[in-house]
Protein backbone atom coordinates (compact mmCIF):
# COMPACT_ATOMS: atom_id res chain seq x y z
CA UNK A 1 0.00 0.00 0.00
CA UNK A 2 1.44 3.38 -0.99
CA UNK A 3 1.72 6.34 1.35
CA UNK A 4 -0.83 8.11 -0.80
CA UNK A 5 -3.38 5.31 -0.42
CA UNK A 6 -2.66 5.08 3.31
CA UNK A 7 -3.16 8.82 3.87
CA UNK A 8 -6.28 8.68 1.70
CA UNK A 9 -7.60 5.91 3.95
CA UNK A 10 -6.87 8.03 7.04
CA UNK A 11 -8.62 11.02 5.49
CA UNK A 12 -11.75 9.00 4.77
CA UNK A 13 -11.42 7.32 8.14
CA UNK A 14 -11.55 10.69 9.90
CA UNK A 15 -14.53 11.82 7.78
CA UNK A 16 -16.42 8.64 8.62
CA UNK A 17 -15.32 8.94 12.27
CA UNK A 18 -17.79 11.85 12.42
CA UNK A 19 -20.47 9.47 11.13
CA UNK A 20 -19.39 6.93 13.77
CA UNK A 21 -19.65 9.56 16.53
CA UNK A 22 -23.12 10.47 15.29
CA UNK A 23 -24.18 6.82 15.17
CA UNK A 24 -22.68 6.32 18.65
CA UNK A 25 -24.89 9.14 19.97
CA UNK A 26 -28.08 7.68 18.53
CA UNK A 27 -27.52 3.92 18.78
CA UNK A 28 -25.43 3.74 21.96
CA UNK A 29 -26.18 6.83 24.07
CA UNK A 30 -29.87 7.27 23.25
CA UNK A 31 -30.40 3.63 22.19
CA UNK A 32 -32.35 5.02 19.23
CA UNK A 33 -31.89 2.90 16.06
CA UNK A 34 -31.54 5.74 13.58
CA UNK A 35 -31.25 5.17 9.83
CA UNK A 36 -31.67 8.90 9.08
CA UNK A 37 -27.89 9.05 8.53
CA UNK A 38 -28.20 7.47 5.05
CA UNK A 39 -30.09 10.66 4.17
CA UNK A 40 -28.36 13.23 6.34
CA UNK A 41 -24.88 12.38 4.99
CA UNK A 42 -25.82 13.31 1.39
CA UNK A 43 -27.98 16.13 2.82
CA UNK A 44 -24.87 17.73 4.31
CA UNK A 45 -23.04 17.25 1.02
CA UNK A 46 -25.96 18.66 -0.98
CA UNK A 47 -26.42 21.76 1.18
CA UNK A 48 -22.69 22.55 1.36
CA UNK A 49 -22.10 21.96 -2.37
CA UNK A 50 -25.15 23.92 -3.52
CA UNK A 51 -24.33 26.91 -1.32
CA UNK A 52 -20.65 26.91 -2.34
CA UNK A 53 -21.57 26.79 -6.03
CA UNK A 54 -24.11 29.57 -5.41
CA UNK A 55 -21.19 31.71 -4.21
CA UNK A 56 -21.49 31.49 -0.43
CA UNK A 57 -18.24 31.07 1.49
CA UNK A 58 -17.41 27.42 2.31
CA UNK A 59 -17.39 27.89 6.11
CA UNK A 60 -20.93 29.27 6.25
CA UNK A 61 -21.99 26.60 3.75
CA UNK A 62 -20.56 23.84 5.96
CA UNK A 63 -22.28 25.28 9.04
CA UNK A 64 -25.55 25.42 7.09
CA UNK A 65 -25.02 21.74 6.22
CA UNK A 66 -24.74 20.91 9.93
CA UNK A 67 -27.92 22.85 10.62
CA UNK A 68 -29.74 20.95 7.87
CA UNK A 69 -28.53 17.66 9.36
CA UNK A 70 -29.76 18.73 12.80
CA UNK A 71 -33.16 19.52 11.29
CA UNK A 72 -33.31 16.03 9.77
CA UNK A 73 -32.52 14.48 13.18
CA UNK A 74 -35.17 16.65 14.82
CA UNK A 75 -37.74 15.52 12.26
CA UNK A 76 -37.07 11.84 13.02
CA UNK A 77 -37.18 12.45 16.78
CA UNK A 78 -40.35 14.53 16.45
CA UNK A 79 -42.11 11.82 14.43
CA UNK A 80 -41.18 9.29 17.11
CA UNK A 81 -42.13 11.43 20.10
CA UNK A 82 -45.16 13.35 18.86
CA UNK A 83 -46.61 11.20 16.10
CA UNK A 84 -45.75 7.99 17.97
CA UNK A 85 -44.24 6.34 14.91
CA UNK A 86 -41.82 3.52 15.82
CA UNK A 87 -38.31 5.07 15.98
CA UNK A 88 -36.82 2.79 13.33
CA UNK A 89 -39.69 3.45 10.92
CA UNK A 90 -39.61 7.20 11.59
CA UNK A 91 -35.93 7.28 10.67
CA UNK A 92 -36.61 5.27 7.50
CA UNK A 93 -39.33 7.77 6.52
CA UNK A 94 -36.93 10.69 6.98
CA UNK A 95 -34.23 8.84 5.05
CA UNK A 96 -36.54 8.17 2.09
CA UNK A 97 -37.88 11.72 2.10
CA UNK A 98 -34.37 13.16 2.18
CA UNK A 99 -33.56 11.48 -1.15
CA UNK A 100 -36.14 13.71 -2.87
CA UNK A 101 -35.25 16.72 -0.73
CA UNK A 102 -31.57 16.36 -1.63
CA UNK A 103 -32.49 16.29 -5.31
CA UNK A 104 -34.55 19.46 -4.78
CA UNK A 105 -31.69 21.18 -2.96
CA UNK A 106 -29.16 20.40 -5.67
CA UNK A 107 -31.64 20.75 -8.56
CA UNK A 108 -29.83 17.81 -10.21
CA UNK A 109 -28.31 14.56 -9.00
CA UNK A 110 -24.64 15.66 -9.05
CA UNK A 111 -23.08 19.01 -8.12
CA UNK A 112 -19.40 19.28 -9.01
CA UNK A 113 -17.05 21.17 -6.70
CA UNK A 114 -13.76 20.56 -8.53
CA UNK A 115 -11.95 23.90 -8.69
CA UNK A 116 -14.33 25.66 -6.28
CA UNK A 117 -13.02 27.29 -3.11
CA UNK A 118 -13.68 24.92 -0.18
CA UNK A 119 -12.81 24.78 3.52
CA UNK A 120 -9.68 22.93 2.41
CA UNK A 121 -8.48 25.71 0.09
CA UNK A 122 -6.61 27.68 2.83
CA UNK A 123 -4.48 24.56 3.41
CA UNK A 124 -2.88 25.01 0.01
CA UNK A 125 -1.10 28.11 1.38
CA UNK A 126 0.78 25.96 3.93
CA UNK A 127 3.06 24.52 1.28
CA UNK A 128 2.65 20.81 1.98
CA UNK A 129 0.68 18.71 -0.56
CA UNK A 130 -3.06 18.36 -0.01
CA UNK A 131 -2.96 14.59 0.47
CA UNK A 132 -0.83 15.13 3.61
CA UNK A 133 -2.59 18.20 4.97
CA UNK A 134 -6.20 17.11 4.46
CA UNK A 135 -6.00 14.03 6.74
CA UNK A 136 -4.14 16.13 9.35
CA UNK A 137 -6.77 18.87 9.21
CA UNK A 138 -9.63 16.36 9.40
CA UNK A 139 -7.85 14.53 12.23
CA UNK A 140 -7.47 17.72 14.27
CA UNK A 141 -11.11 18.61 13.66
CA UNK A 142 -12.30 15.13 14.70
CA UNK A 143 -10.22 15.20 17.89
CA UNK A 144 -11.54 18.65 18.81
CA UNK A 145 -15.11 17.53 18.21
CA UNK A 146 -14.46 14.33 20.19
CA UNK A 147 -13.19 16.41 23.12
CA UNK A 148 -16.25 18.69 22.93
CA UNK A 149 -18.55 15.68 22.73
CA UNK A 150 -16.86 14.10 25.80
CA UNK A 151 -17.33 17.36 27.69
CA UNK A 152 -20.95 17.54 26.58
CA UNK A 153 -21.72 13.97 27.66
CA UNK A 154 -20.31 14.81 31.09
CA UNK A 155 -22.46 17.94 31.41
CA UNK A 156 -25.86 18.03 33.07
CA UNK A 157 -27.71 17.80 29.73
CA UNK A 158 -25.33 15.10 28.53
CA UNK A 159 -25.82 13.01 31.65
CA UNK A 160 -29.57 13.44 31.30
CA UNK A 161 -29.27 12.23 27.70
CA UNK A 162 -27.32 9.13 28.78
CA UNK A 163 -29.91 8.43 31.46
CA UNK A 164 -32.65 8.76 28.82
CA UNK A 165 -31.01 6.04 26.77
CA UNK A 166 -30.21 3.74 29.70
CA UNK A 167 -33.62 3.81 31.36
CA UNK A 168 -36.18 6.33 30.09
CA UNK A 169 -38.73 5.55 32.79
CA UNK A 170 -36.23 6.05 35.60
CA UNK A 171 -34.98 9.21 33.89
CA UNK A 172 -38.50 10.64 33.76
CA UNK A 173 -39.06 9.68 37.38
CA UNK A 174 -35.99 11.76 38.23
CA UNK A 175 -37.42 14.79 36.49
CA UNK A 176 -35.54 14.51 33.18
CA UNK A 177 -37.46 15.79 30.17
CA UNK A 178 -36.66 12.74 28.03
CA UNK A 179 -38.36 14.19 24.95
CA UNK A 180 -36.04 17.19 25.08
CA UNK A 181 -32.88 15.11 25.54
CA UNK A 182 -33.92 12.84 22.64
CA UNK A 183 -34.53 15.83 20.37
CA UNK A 184 -31.17 17.39 21.26
CA UNK A 185 -29.30 14.11 20.89
CA UNK A 186 -30.80 13.28 17.51
CA UNK A 187 -30.12 16.80 16.22
CA UNK A 188 -26.51 16.58 17.39
CA UNK A 189 -26.05 13.10 15.92
CA UNK A 190 -27.30 14.04 12.47
CA UNK A 191 -25.48 17.38 12.51
CA UNK A 192 -22.23 15.41 12.90
CA UNK A 193 -23.19 13.09 10.04
CA UNK A 194 -24.13 16.03 7.80
CA UNK A 195 -20.78 17.65 8.63
CA UNK A 196 -19.09 14.45 7.46
CA UNK A 197 -21.09 14.62 4.22
CA UNK A 198 -20.16 18.27 3.69
CA UNK A 199 -16.44 17.55 4.24
CA UNK A 200 -16.56 14.43 2.05
CA UNK A 201 -18.08 16.41 -0.84
CA UNK A 202 -15.45 19.14 -0.49
CA UNK A 203 -12.51 16.74 -0.40
CA UNK A 204 -13.88 14.50 -3.19
CA UNK A 205 -14.91 17.30 -5.52
CA UNK A 206 -18.61 16.56 -5.86
CA UNK A 207 -21.88 15.94 -4.07
CA UNK A 208 -23.92 13.07 -5.49
CA UNK A 209 -27.41 12.08 -4.44
CA UNK A 210 -26.41 8.41 -4.26
CA UNK A 211 -23.48 8.97 -1.89
CA UNK A 212 -25.48 8.15 1.24
CA UNK A 213 -25.93 4.49 0.35
CA UNK A 214 -24.57 2.31 3.14
CA UNK A 215 -23.56 5.17 5.47
CA UNK A 216 -25.26 3.51 8.43
CA UNK A 217 -23.50 0.21 7.74
CA UNK A 218 -20.07 1.87 7.73
CA UNK A 219 -20.94 3.92 10.83
CA UNK A 220 -22.12 0.88 12.76
CA UNK A 221 -19.11 -1.17 11.66
CA UNK A 222 -16.84 1.57 13.01
CA UNK A 223 -18.71 1.85 16.34
CA UNK A 224 -18.91 -1.89 16.95
CA UNK A 225 -15.43 -2.58 15.57
CA UNK A 226 -13.93 0.13 17.75
CA UNK A 227 -15.69 -1.30 20.81
CA UNK A 228 -14.30 -4.75 20.04
CA UNK A 229 -10.79 -3.33 19.78
CA UNK A 230 -10.80 -1.06 22.85
CA UNK A 231 -13.47 -2.46 25.24
CA UNK A 232 -14.25 1.08 26.39
CA UNK A 233 -15.38 1.63 29.98
CA UNK A 234 -15.47 5.44 29.89
CA UNK A 235 -17.13 7.94 27.56
CA UNK A 236 -13.76 9.30 26.43
CA UNK A 237 -12.63 5.80 25.48
CA UNK A 238 -15.94 5.02 23.80
CA UNK A 239 -15.66 8.03 21.49
CA UNK A 240 -11.99 7.21 20.88
CA UNK A 241 -13.11 3.69 19.90
CA UNK A 242 -15.47 5.17 17.29
CA UNK A 243 -12.59 7.06 15.70
CA UNK A 244 -10.23 4.08 15.87
CA UNK A 245 -12.91 1.78 14.44
CA UNK A 246 -13.46 4.10 11.49
CA UNK A 247 -9.72 4.42 10.77
CA UNK A 248 -9.16 0.64 10.95
CA UNK A 249 -12.14 0.03 8.66
CA UNK A 250 -10.75 2.35 5.99
CA UNK A 251 -7.24 0.91 6.23
CA UNK A 252 -8.76 -2.56 5.78
CA UNK A 253 -10.64 -1.38 2.67
CA UNK A 254 -7.36 0.01 1.33
CA UNK A 255 -5.79 -3.40 2.01
CA UNK A 256 -8.65 -5.13 0.24
CA UNK A 257 -7.96 -2.95 -2.81
CA UNK A 258 -4.45 -4.40 -2.84
CA UNK A 259 -5.60 -8.00 -2.54
CA UNK A 260 -5.11 -8.80 -6.24
CA UNK A 261 -1.93 -10.75 -5.43
CA UNK A 262 -4.09 -13.45 -3.87
CA UNK A 263 -5.81 -14.02 -7.20
CA UNK A 264 -8.75 -11.97 -6.00
CA UNK A 265 -10.47 -9.61 -8.40
CA UNK A 266 -12.31 -6.33 -8.32
CA UNK A 267 -15.70 -7.96 -7.82
CA UNK A 268 -14.47 -9.63 -4.61
CA UNK A 269 -13.85 -6.28 -2.89
CA UNK A 270 -16.85 -6.21 -0.57
CA UNK A 271 -16.28 -9.83 0.40
CA UNK A 272 -12.62 -9.19 1.25
CA UNK A 273 -13.59 -6.13 3.27
CA UNK A 274 -16.13 -8.16 5.22
CA UNK A 275 -13.60 -10.95 5.91
CA UNK A 276 -10.91 -8.47 6.99
CA UNK A 277 -13.27 -6.61 9.33
CA UNK A 278 -14.48 -9.91 10.73
CA UNK A 279 -10.88 -11.02 11.30
CA UNK A 280 -9.99 -7.71 12.99
CA UNK A 281 -12.89 -8.29 15.39
CA UNK A 282 -12.15 -11.92 16.19
CA UNK A 283 -8.33 -12.11 16.21
CA UNK A 284 -7.78 -10.09 19.42
CA UNK A 285 -10.27 -12.32 21.24
CA UNK A 286 -8.52 -15.48 20.04
CA UNK A 287 -5.24 -14.09 21.41
CA UNK A 288 -6.87 -13.45 24.78
CA UNK A 289 -8.28 -16.97 24.88
CA UNK A 290 -4.81 -18.46 24.39
CA UNK A 291 -3.30 -16.19 27.02
CA UNK A 292 -5.93 -17.30 29.52
CA UNK A 293 -5.38 -21.00 28.75
Amino acid at each position, binding site marked *: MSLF*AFLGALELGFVYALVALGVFLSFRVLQFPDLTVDGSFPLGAAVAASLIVAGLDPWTSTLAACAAGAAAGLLTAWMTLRLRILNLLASILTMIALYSIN*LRIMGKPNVAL*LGESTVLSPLAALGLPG*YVLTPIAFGVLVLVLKWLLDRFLGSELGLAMRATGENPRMARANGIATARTTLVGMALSNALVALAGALFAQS*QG*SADVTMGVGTIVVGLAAVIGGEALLHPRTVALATAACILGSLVYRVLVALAL*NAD*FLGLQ*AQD*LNLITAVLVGAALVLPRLGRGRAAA
Partner: protein
Amino acid sequence: MKPSLTARSLLAALLLAAGGSAGAADKSVAITQIVEHPSLEAIRQGVLDELAAQGLKPGQGLKLDYQNAQGNPATAAQIARKFAGDRPDAIVAITTPSAQAVAAATRDIPVVFVTVTDPIAARLVKSLERPGGNVTGTSDATPIAEQLALVRELTPQVRRLGVIYNPGEVNAVAQLERARAEGARFGLTVVESAAPKSSDVLGAARALVGKADAIYVPVDNTVVSALEAVVKVGLEAKLPVYSGDTDSVARGTLASLGYDYYASGRQSGRMLLRVLNGEAPGSMPVERIEKLELHLNLKTARVIGVELPAAVRGRAAKLID
Protein backbone atom coordinates in the same frame (compact mmCIF):
# COMPACT_ATOMS: atom_id res chain seq x y z
CA MET B 1 -0.92 -7.71 24.94
CA LYS B 2 -4.18 -7.46 23.11
CA PRO B 3 -3.69 -4.25 21.12
CA SER B 4 -0.14 -5.21 20.22
CA LEU B 5 -1.35 -8.49 18.77
CA THR B 6 -3.93 -6.63 16.67
CA ALA B 7 -1.27 -4.21 15.57
CA ARG B 8 1.04 -7.07 14.65
CA SER B 9 -1.58 -8.86 12.57
CA LEU B 10 -2.39 -5.59 10.81
CA LEU B 11 1.27 -4.94 10.14
CA ALA B 12 1.71 -8.44 8.75
CA ALA B 13 -1.21 -7.93 6.40
CA LEU B 14 0.22 -4.56 5.35
CA LEU B 15 3.61 -6.04 4.52
CA LEU B 16 1.98 -8.87 2.62
CA ALA B 17 0.00 -6.40 0.53
CA ALA B 18 3.01 -4.19 -0.15
CA GLY B 19 5.11 -7.15 -1.26
CA GLY B 20 2.38 -8.52 -3.48
CA SER B 21 1.72 -5.36 -5.46
CA ALA B 22 5.28 -5.11 -6.74
CA GLY B 23 6.08 -6.06 -10.31
CA ALA B 24 7.70 -4.66 -13.42
CA ALA B 25 6.02 -3.96 -16.75
CA ASP B 26 6.44 -1.46 -19.56
CA LYS B 27 3.14 0.45 -19.39
CA SER B 28 0.88 0.62 -16.37
CA VAL B 29 -2.82 1.41 -16.69
CA ALA B 30 -5.29 1.63 -13.81
CA ILE B 31 -9.04 1.38 -14.46
CA THR B 32 -11.66 2.54 -11.95
CA GLN B 33 -15.36 1.89 -12.42
CA ILE B 34 -18.24 2.80 -10.11
CA VAL B 35 -20.40 -0.32 -10.43
CA GLU B 36 -20.86 -3.61 -12.33
CA HIS B 37 -23.13 -3.09 -15.33
CA PRO B 38 -23.30 -4.82 -18.75
CA SER B 39 -22.72 -1.61 -20.77
CA LEU B 40 -19.80 -0.62 -18.55
CA GLU B 41 -18.27 -4.09 -18.87
CA ALA B 42 -18.57 -3.78 -22.67
CA ILE B 43 -16.76 -0.44 -22.53
CA ARG B 44 -13.95 -1.82 -20.43
CA GLN B 45 -13.58 -4.79 -22.76
CA GLY B 46 -13.40 -2.37 -25.69
CA VAL B 47 -10.60 -0.40 -24.03
CA LEU B 48 -8.65 -3.57 -23.24
CA ASP B 49 -9.13 -4.99 -26.75
CA GLU B 50 -7.86 -1.76 -28.29
CA LEU B 51 -4.75 -1.98 -26.12
CA ALA B 52 -4.35 -5.66 -27.01
CA ALA B 53 -4.62 -4.80 -30.72
CA GLN B 54 -1.53 -2.63 -30.22
CA GLY B 55 0.28 -5.47 -28.50
CA LEU B 56 -0.38 -4.32 -24.95
CA LYS B 57 -1.81 -7.26 -23.04
CA PRO B 58 -1.92 -7.75 -19.28
CA GLY B 59 1.38 -9.37 -18.37
CA GLN B 60 2.87 -8.68 -21.80
CA GLY B 61 3.97 -5.07 -21.81
CA LEU B 62 0.94 -3.96 -19.80
CA LYS B 63 0.49 -3.81 -16.05
CA LEU B 64 -3.25 -3.54 -15.46
CA ASP B 65 -4.97 -2.66 -12.20
CA TYR B 66 -8.76 -2.78 -12.39
CA GLN B 67 -10.87 -1.77 -9.38
CA ASN B 68 -14.63 -1.53 -8.99
CA ALA B 69 -16.25 0.52 -6.18
CA GLN B 70 -19.30 -1.81 -6.13
CA GLY B 71 -21.58 1.23 -6.04
CA ASN B 72 -19.98 2.83 -2.98
CA PRO B 73 -18.77 6.43 -3.43
CA ALA B 74 -16.40 6.27 -0.44
CA THR B 75 -14.74 3.21 -1.96
CA ALA B 76 -14.47 5.07 -5.28
CA ALA B 77 -12.61 7.81 -3.41
CA GLN B 78 -10.25 5.26 -1.88
CA ILE B 79 -9.60 3.64 -5.25
CA ALA B 80 -8.73 7.09 -6.61
CA ARG B 81 -6.23 7.59 -3.75
CA LYS B 82 -4.72 4.18 -4.32
CA PHE B 83 -4.17 4.95 -8.00
CA ALA B 84 -2.76 8.40 -7.23
CA GLY B 85 -0.26 6.69 -4.93
CA ASP B 86 0.58 3.85 -7.33
CA ARG B 87 1.35 6.40 -10.06
CA PRO B 88 0.39 4.41 -13.18
CA ASP B 89 1.16 5.85 -16.62
CA ALA B 90 -2.54 6.57 -17.12
CA ILE B 91 -5.84 6.17 -15.27
CA VAL B 92 -9.06 5.20 -17.07
CA ALA B 93 -12.17 6.36 -15.19
CA ILE B 94 -15.44 4.81 -16.31
CA THR B 95 -18.54 6.91 -15.36
CA THR B 96 -18.87 10.42 -13.90
CA PRO B 97 -18.47 9.76 -10.14
CA SER B 98 -15.34 7.65 -10.63
CA ALA B 99 -13.88 10.33 -12.91
CA GLN B 100 -14.60 13.08 -10.38
CA ALA B 101 -12.97 11.09 -7.59
CA VAL B 102 -9.83 10.57 -9.68
CA ALA B 103 -9.71 14.20 -10.80
CA ALA B 104 -9.88 15.26 -7.14
CA ALA B 105 -7.06 12.87 -6.19
CA THR B 106 -4.45 13.74 -8.80
CA ARG B 107 -3.53 16.79 -10.84
CA ASP B 108 -0.66 15.27 -12.81
CA ILE B 109 -1.32 11.60 -13.68
CA PRO B 110 -3.05 11.50 -17.10
CA VAL B 111 -6.74 10.56 -16.84
CA VAL B 112 -8.95 9.30 -19.68
CA PHE B 113 -12.64 9.26 -18.76
CA VAL B 114 -15.29 7.20 -20.52
CA THR B 115 -19.09 7.65 -20.62
CA VAL B 116 -19.29 11.04 -19.00
CA THR B 117 -22.36 12.73 -20.46
CA ASP B 118 -21.44 16.31 -19.62
CA PRO B 119 -17.73 16.68 -18.77
CA ILE B 120 -18.03 20.46 -18.35
CA ALA B 121 -20.92 20.33 -15.85
CA ALA B 122 -18.99 17.60 -14.01
CA ARG B 123 -16.04 20.07 -13.86
CA LEU B 124 -13.69 17.52 -15.37
CA VAL B 125 -12.55 19.77 -18.22
CA LYS B 126 -12.64 23.51 -18.84
CA SER B 127 -13.60 23.18 -22.49
CA LEU B 128 -14.31 20.29 -24.84
CA GLU B 129 -11.81 21.53 -27.43
CA ARG B 130 -8.95 22.26 -25.01
CA PRO B 131 -9.44 20.44 -21.71
CA GLY B 132 -6.30 21.92 -20.06
CA GLY B 133 -5.12 20.01 -16.98
CA ASN B 134 -4.48 16.26 -16.93
CA VAL B 135 -7.94 15.00 -17.93
CA THR B 136 -9.59 14.17 -21.25
CA GLY B 137 -11.83 11.39 -22.58
CA THR B 138 -14.96 10.50 -24.49
CA SER B 139 -18.40 11.96 -23.88
CA ASP B 140 -21.59 10.00 -24.50
CA ALA B 141 -24.30 12.61 -24.75
CA THR B 142 -27.17 10.36 -25.87
CA PRO B 143 -28.41 11.18 -29.42
CA ILE B 144 -31.94 12.09 -28.26
CA ALA B 145 -33.03 13.84 -31.49
CA GLU B 146 -32.08 10.81 -33.59
CA GLN B 147 -33.98 8.54 -31.21
CA LEU B 148 -37.13 10.69 -31.25
CA ALA B 149 -36.96 10.69 -35.04
CA LEU B 150 -36.84 6.88 -34.89
CA VAL B 151 -39.98 6.84 -32.70
CA ARG B 152 -41.83 8.94 -35.28
CA GLU B 153 -40.56 6.85 -38.15
CA LEU B 154 -41.48 3.41 -36.74
CA THR B 155 -44.67 4.39 -34.88
CA PRO B 156 -46.04 7.62 -36.45
CA GLN B 157 -49.27 7.46 -34.41
CA VAL B 158 -47.39 8.12 -31.14
CA ARG B 159 -48.09 11.57 -29.67
CA ARG B 160 -47.42 11.04 -25.94
CA LEU B 161 -44.05 9.51 -25.11
CA GLY B 162 -43.69 8.09 -21.60
CA VAL B 163 -40.17 8.32 -20.15
CA ILE B 164 -39.18 6.15 -17.18
CA TYR B 165 -36.11 7.48 -15.37
CA ASN B 166 -34.37 7.67 -12.01
CA PRO B 167 -34.49 11.29 -10.79
CA GLY B 168 -31.27 10.56 -8.87
CA GLU B 169 -29.20 9.75 -11.93
CA VAL B 170 -27.56 12.79 -13.49
CA ASN B 171 -27.34 11.32 -16.99
CA ALA B 172 -30.98 10.20 -16.95
CA VAL B 173 -32.26 13.62 -15.89
CA ALA B 174 -30.21 15.28 -18.63
CA GLN B 175 -31.73 12.91 -21.21
CA LEU B 176 -35.26 13.58 -19.95
CA GLU B 177 -34.75 17.33 -20.23
CA ARG B 178 -33.37 17.01 -23.74
CA ALA B 179 -36.28 14.74 -24.73
CA ARG B 180 -38.72 17.33 -23.43
CA ALA B 181 -36.95 20.15 -25.24
CA GLU B 182 -36.56 18.27 -28.54
CA GLY B 183 -39.97 16.56 -28.35
CA ALA B 184 -41.92 19.54 -29.70
CA ARG B 185 -39.93 19.42 -32.93
CA PHE B 186 -41.18 15.87 -33.50
CA GLY B 187 -44.75 16.49 -32.27
CA LEU B 188 -44.15 14.42 -29.13
CA THR B 189 -45.27 15.31 -25.60
CA VAL B 190 -43.15 13.78 -22.86
CA VAL B 191 -44.97 12.08 -19.97
CA GLU B 192 -42.51 11.37 -17.16
CA SER B 193 -42.62 8.51 -14.70
CA ALA B 194 -40.03 8.39 -11.93
CA ALA B 195 -38.40 5.20 -10.58
CA PRO B 196 -35.82 5.98 -7.87
CA LYS B 197 -35.07 2.28 -7.29
CA SER B 198 -35.02 -0.83 -9.49
CA SER B 199 -38.00 -2.16 -7.55
CA ASP B 200 -40.01 0.94 -8.51
CA VAL B 201 -39.64 0.35 -12.25
CA LEU B 202 -42.63 -2.00 -12.66
CA GLY B 203 -44.94 0.49 -10.95
CA ALA B 204 -43.53 3.36 -12.98
CA ALA B 205 -44.16 1.45 -16.22
CA ARG B 206 -47.72 0.53 -15.23
CA ALA B 207 -48.42 4.17 -14.36
CA LEU B 208 -47.80 5.05 -18.01
CA VAL B 209 -50.44 2.71 -19.43
CA GLY B 210 -53.29 4.89 -20.73
CA LYS B 211 -51.21 8.04 -20.31
CA ALA B 212 -48.65 7.37 -23.03
CA ASP B 213 -48.66 5.86 -26.53
CA ALA B 214 -45.09 4.60 -26.29
CA ILE B 215 -42.42 4.21 -23.62
CA TYR B 216 -38.85 5.46 -23.87
CA VAL B 217 -36.19 4.06 -21.52
CA PRO B 218 -33.19 6.41 -21.41
CA VAL B 219 -29.66 5.24 -20.66
CA ASP B 220 -30.37 4.96 -16.94
CA ASN B 221 -28.61 2.30 -14.86
CA THR B 222 -31.53 1.92 -12.43
CA VAL B 223 -34.25 1.47 -15.04
CA VAL B 224 -32.13 -0.64 -17.39
CA SER B 225 -31.32 -3.02 -14.54
CA ALA B 226 -35.07 -3.74 -14.21
CA LEU B 227 -35.80 -3.51 -17.91
CA GLU B 228 -37.78 -6.77 -18.06
CA ALA B 229 -40.54 -5.09 -16.01
CA VAL B 230 -40.93 -2.37 -18.65
CA VAL B 231 -40.84 -4.89 -21.49
CA LYS B 232 -43.54 -6.95 -19.81
CA VAL B 233 -45.86 -3.96 -19.39
CA GLY B 234 -45.18 -2.92 -22.99
CA LEU B 235 -46.11 -6.36 -24.35
CA GLU B 236 -49.24 -6.60 -22.18
CA ALA B 237 -50.51 -3.11 -23.05
CA LYS B 238 -49.25 -3.29 -26.67
CA LEU B 239 -47.10 -0.20 -26.14
CA PRO B 240 -43.91 0.09 -28.17
CA VAL B 241 -40.89 0.39 -25.86
CA TYR B 242 -37.81 2.22 -27.15
CA SER B 243 -34.49 2.17 -25.34
CA GLY B 244 -31.56 4.59 -25.34
CA ASP B 245 -29.04 1.75 -25.28
CA THR B 246 -28.90 -0.92 -27.96
CA ASP B 247 -28.11 -3.78 -25.55
CA SER B 248 -31.69 -3.55 -24.24
CA VAL B 249 -33.20 -4.51 -27.61
CA ALA B 250 -32.06 -8.11 -27.14
CA ARG B 251 -33.84 -8.01 -23.78
CA GLY B 252 -37.15 -7.14 -25.49
CA THR B 253 -37.47 -3.44 -26.34
CA LEU B 254 -38.75 -2.71 -29.85
CA ALA B 255 -35.87 -0.64 -31.17
CA SER B 256 -32.93 1.57 -30.30
CA LEU B 257 -30.62 3.87 -32.14
CA GLY B 258 -27.74 4.11 -29.73
CA TYR B 259 -24.09 3.81 -29.09
CA ASP B 260 -22.24 0.66 -29.51
CA TYR B 261 -20.66 0.67 -26.05
CA TYR B 262 -17.99 -1.76 -27.06
CA ALA B 263 -17.04 0.55 -29.95
CA SER B 264 -16.97 3.51 -27.59
CA GLY B 265 -14.54 1.55 -25.42
CA ARG B 266 -12.34 1.01 -28.48
CA GLN B 267 -12.50 4.74 -29.28
CA SER B 268 -11.50 5.61 -25.71
CA GLY B 269 -8.77 2.99 -25.93
CA ARG B 270 -7.29 4.84 -28.91
CA MET B 271 -7.19 8.05 -26.84
CA LEU B 272 -5.56 6.09 -24.03
CA LEU B 273 -2.87 4.83 -26.41
CA ARG B 274 -2.08 8.41 -27.47
CA VAL B 275 -1.73 9.35 -23.80
CA LEU B 276 0.52 6.34 -23.15
CA ASN B 277 2.69 7.48 -26.05
CA GLY B 278 3.29 10.76 -24.29
CA GLU B 279 0.61 13.08 -25.66
CA ALA B 280 -0.67 15.59 -23.08
CA PRO B 281 -4.36 15.05 -22.16
CA GLY B 282 -4.78 18.81 -21.72
CA SER B 283 -4.31 19.37 -25.46
CA MET B 284 -6.46 16.42 -26.62
CA PRO B 285 -10.07 17.52 -27.32
CA VAL B 286 -12.85 15.54 -25.65
CA GLU B 287 -14.24 13.18 -28.31
CA ARG B 288 -17.92 12.49 -28.84
CA ILE B 289 -18.76 8.88 -29.37
CA GLU B 290 -19.28 8.60 -33.10
CA LYS B 291 -20.76 5.28 -33.93
CA LEU B 292 -24.58 4.95 -33.88
CA GLU B 293 -26.26 1.62 -34.47
CA LEU B 294 -29.88 0.64 -35.09
CA HIS B 295 -31.07 -2.50 -33.31
CA LEU B 296 -34.57 -3.93 -33.93
CA ASN B 297 -36.53 -6.66 -32.14
CA LEU B 298 -38.77 -8.39 -34.68
CA LYS B 299 -40.42 -10.64 -32.10
CA THR B 300 -41.57 -7.68 -30.02
CA ALA B 301 -42.78 -5.94 -33.19
CA ARG B 302 -44.97 -8.94 -34.06
CA VAL B 303 -46.48 -9.22 -30.56
CA ILE B 304 -47.48 -5.56 -30.33
CA GLY B 305 -48.44 -5.35 -34.02
CA VAL B 306 -45.90 -2.86 -35.36
CA GLU B 307 -44.91 -3.06 -39.04
CA LEU B 308 -41.19 -2.66 -39.60
CA PRO B 309 -40.64 -1.56 -43.24
CA ALA B 310 -37.99 -3.44 -45.19
CA ALA B 311 -36.02 -0.22 -45.67
CA VAL B 312 -35.72 0.21 -41.89
CA ARG B 313 -34.73 -3.43 -41.47
CA GLY B 314 -32.02 -2.95 -44.04
CA ARG B 315 -30.47 -0.15 -41.99
CA ALA B 316 -30.35 -2.21 -38.81
CA ALA B 317 -27.00 -3.38 -37.52
CA LYS B 318 -28.71 -6.15 -35.59
CA LEU B 319 -32.09 -7.87 -35.92
CA ILE B 320 -33.31 -9.85 -32.92
CA ASP B 321 -35.75 -12.66 -33.62
